[in-house]
């Protein structure tokens, strides 16, 4: 870890401005990811702006009937919120499926969205990595890529976004509110927050330097049954091999509405609109689930070690949809 200076921001605009004026400055909140990366010198900010104590830690009702989640709401608090648990159960399930109790107590909502990949080669400075060192190559392409992306990846990078929370939020059509260094605010659909790697895997989000997430807004809870299903190598404290966030609304034995997002398979939380089109109006049968699963994984590319994720994701989608309709 290289030396850095530190300040505690007094308000949102000051925080955004403080980062914006220094090219090597970063926001820090819970630090559960950034500090690890700094110890390994994957991240080497020269200045940290601590936003963890800004008054962005409330969960409020929106006039539309949704929830506005402050950027500094801790993952454990968000998971435990009674409104979240009753109206957005998949979000609570996703949060509790991620990390450990200690990490969830520290990690913030915005920080969770902006956490970086856990690709082993990204984490090792002796290895080529286009995300860490643009132009150096991707060691994962021909290396140990069991955890890597089968959708949305490029020849430059096949890393996955590791968040569970973001997958549920993606299925819930969350909006991300930000403040720009000049004090203006903007709103970004969660699906537009993360960028695909293409040839610039080091550019991970649509945020400008100094642009700060202040809140995540959830629209009113969608009708239907919500399920978050995480498939992983051990029962706790493991990143998703595949995760599925599904919302299914039934009408008789037909599916009236469906939303589907998958995690652990792509550089960003992966919303599968095509699969949703397949489901809406279909009978709630195994064949519809299979068709949706095939559709969701259409175009998926395995890189050897992660080939299994393609059939696994299909199986997980089918199972999750079946579980969702059982109670819908």
């Amino acid at each position, binding site marked *: *870890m*290289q*030396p850095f200076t530190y300040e505690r921001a007094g308000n949102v605009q000051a925080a955004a401005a403080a980062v914006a004026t220094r090219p090597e400055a970063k926001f820090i909140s819970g630090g559960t990811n950034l500090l690890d990366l700094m*110890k*390994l*010198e994957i991240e080497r900010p020269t200045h940290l702006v601590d936003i963890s104590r800004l008054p962005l830690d409330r969960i409020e009702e929106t006039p539309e009937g949704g929830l506005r989640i402050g950027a500094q709401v801790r993952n454990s608090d968000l998971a435990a919120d009674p409104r979240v648990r009753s109206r957005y159960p998949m979000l609570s399930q996703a949060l509790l499926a991620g990390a450990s109790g200690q990490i969830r107590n520290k990690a913030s909502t915005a920080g969770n969205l902006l956490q970086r990949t*856990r690709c*082993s*080669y990204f*984490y*090792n400075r*002796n*290895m080529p990595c286009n995300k860490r060192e643009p132009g150096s190559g991707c*060691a994962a392409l*021909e*290396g*140990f890529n*069991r955890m890597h992306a089968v959708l949305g990846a490029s020849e430059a990078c096949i890393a996955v976004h590791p968040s569970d929370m973001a997958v549920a939020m993606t299925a819930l059509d969350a909006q991300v509110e930000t403040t720009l260094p000049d004090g203006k605010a903007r709103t970004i659909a969660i699906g537009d927050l993360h960028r695909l790697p293409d040839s610039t895997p080091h550019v991970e989000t649509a945020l400008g330097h100094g642009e700060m997430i202040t809140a995540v807004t959830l629209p009113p809870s969608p009708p239907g049954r919500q399920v978050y299903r995480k*498939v*992983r*190598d*051990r*029962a*706790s*404290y*493991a*990143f998703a*091999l*595949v995760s599925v966030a599904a919302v299914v609304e039934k009408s008789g034995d037909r599916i009236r509405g469906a939303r589907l997002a998958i995690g652990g398979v792509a550089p960003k939380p992966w919303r599968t609109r095509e699969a949703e089109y397949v489901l809406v109006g279909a009978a709630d049968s*195994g064949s519809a*689930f*299979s068709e949706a699963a095939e559709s969701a994984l259409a175009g998926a590319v395995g890189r050897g070690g992660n080939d*299994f994720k393609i*059939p*696994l994701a299909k*199986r*997980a989608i*089918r*199972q999750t949809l*079946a579980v969702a309709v059982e109670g819908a």
Partner: protein
Amino acid sequence: MTEMTTSSPESRSSETRNSLIGRPIGRVDGPLKVTGRATYAYEHAVNEAAYGYILGAAIAKGRIVEIDSAEAERVPGVLHVMTYRNAPAQPEFGPAVTPTVPEVFTRARPVLNSSRVRFYDEPVALVVAETFEAARAAAGLIRVRYEEEGGVFDLPARLADAYAPGRTNAGFETDSATGDFDGAFAAASVKVDATYRTPYEHHNPMEPHATLAVWSGDEVTIYTSAQTLANFQAGLASTLGIPRERVRIVSPFIGGGFGAKLIVHADTVLAALAARVLRRPVKVALTRQQMFANAGHRAEMVQQVRLGAGRDGRLTSIGHDVWSATSGFEEFCEQTAVFTRSLYAAPNRLTRHRLVPVDLNRGEWMRSPGEAPGMLAFECAMDELAERLDLDPIELRIRNEPTEDPERGVPFSTRNLVACMQEGARRFGWERRNPTPRRIREGRRLIGYGMAAAIRPNYIGAAAAKVAIDATGRVTAHLDMTDIGTGTYTILSQIAAESLGVPIAAIKIELGDSRFPRTAGSGGSWGASSAGSALHHACSALKERIMEAARSDDRSPLRGADAAEPIFVGGEVSVGNRTVSLADLIGRIAPDGIEATGSVAAGRNTESYRTYSQHSYGAHFAEVAVDSDTGEIRMRRMLSVIGAGRILNAKTARSQILGGMTWGIGAALMEETVLDPRYGHFVNHDLAEYHVPVNGDVMEMEVVFLEEYDDKANPLGAKGLGELGVCGSGAAIANAVYNATGLRVREFPITLDKLLPGLPASAI
């Protein structure tokens, strides 16, 4: 829950009843640990300590061409940058194989003594600074240029290049052969010929390797995390080129070892070197990531198990061939097939160990070396044979229960394997297992049952102990033994209290200092038997000295007492009809206290070891649930029934077995260090990516100890226990996965991606 049963013919309940030994008392060091007052290696506080940080090599094989530390040296607070160019002279590493087995532990292990890089992340520099943070930051500024040479890392493709080592770890014969294996196997009516693979694995104790070195004149005190102090003392003295007496090792508390703390590593050597150069104390710890290359591993292995049987289920031939990777510069041959020589009867037998050199650091002794990977393969092969014979796996093992050690031809000291299996079957509800796979379903889950046997040699190492009693009746024992979290402080307290007839509260056990009488330390499941026996003898000697004085001293109330056997109990001594308080007696006859010593010799030098085959046994049972869609395997229940001689503390013994069973889950289902053959590095080198079981994986576990007393093993009647839980437990799980799914995965760990291709398309 833990229970003691009395189903063993060897039970000696008259000797063990009402004894303090065996009682499930809580750890005597527990309060210190849970309140943070137990001081671990890196926590020892001294004035003026400086902090070292190791920079590891970025390549796996080659030579340092240039190393530029100028920028690092300019970092404020940096005191010293040590590289091969300025490190104090150390002896050459020497040959890959030491002339004798003990020299493995005592040989010099130089660090930063050459421009050669022998393995990825081998130390190339040590930065010492006023703070850890400054040292780490400066290490990041050192520029190293390498001349890289291609390393070799593959095992399975290079089996033809394997060589036969001169011996295995612990000095066992490399090969064994009895009868005509090839002929018998060829002629067998029913056969299994199966090849299994086990991956690189890492010990991963919670406490990383860490050392504080403090020189005083030409003597150095090393505060470290060590399982065996004498090894550390000798190994460091050899490396520094100084007499052993000038090295003192202090290691009172150890946050787990699992075999990774039996020899000195780079943290110890570099702390000692830097502290001497700087003339001030230096602390060095390995990071978790550095532990993967620098603190030992279990090597990758390929094992071929060949079993031939008649239709009656009797084995006619047993073959166990092991190919293992080994470091090219220091050989380590895990004794993976050695247990096979003692487990089941068969007239024709063959075991062989072969090695394939790779460009990695040396392998080390990891959580039951030999049995852990060996039984994982062998006990799965037995399950495969049982199915081909249409026999229950327990019945197959009973039909092949030997009456004497099958290869040594000597009787067993105690062997309750059959009793363990039968008791386990009864308690586990083994009759509910359907021998046909995939027959038990609960919703989307496939349920399977599996079992495996456990065997582990009973070792005893040379050990000595000193025990003293003062005029208030307080007893203090000193041994250079260690408590690596196993409960040594507690069981030694029980042994001393029982022997001297005083309450546990009157006993103080002092461990973890090389100034104390030498023991074999913690390792090989021999700590309790070795140190415990030495302490038992020391207590007996102390009682004799007390009685000598008591009978002859003018001030003694027992003066002239007859020759009847004295009884030490309840803090009193009785001879015939005369009873006095022990404290009162000592106060009168020895106001300055009395002390005595005791010792045991290494087991292999004893007649008992030569004339008896000594092992601990057990039977493991597992129930798993497999998601029929995703292939996720989750434990439901485990049961281990253990026959390991007298249990010294039913609570700490249970904890040890539970730990071993948990490692069995790890070995079967998740532990694997991935080696990238392009770079020669372990890819998943932290606890997020190297999976060990977490609480959510463990579920219900039960341990049952058969009541047993092994009078051939040692004066306590106890046998080695610590590693028995991991011996075979992984195979029980693998067999349960097979029973659940009908899929036999022979490449460990069994992860869901290996099951997926065999799982029928989702039946939703």
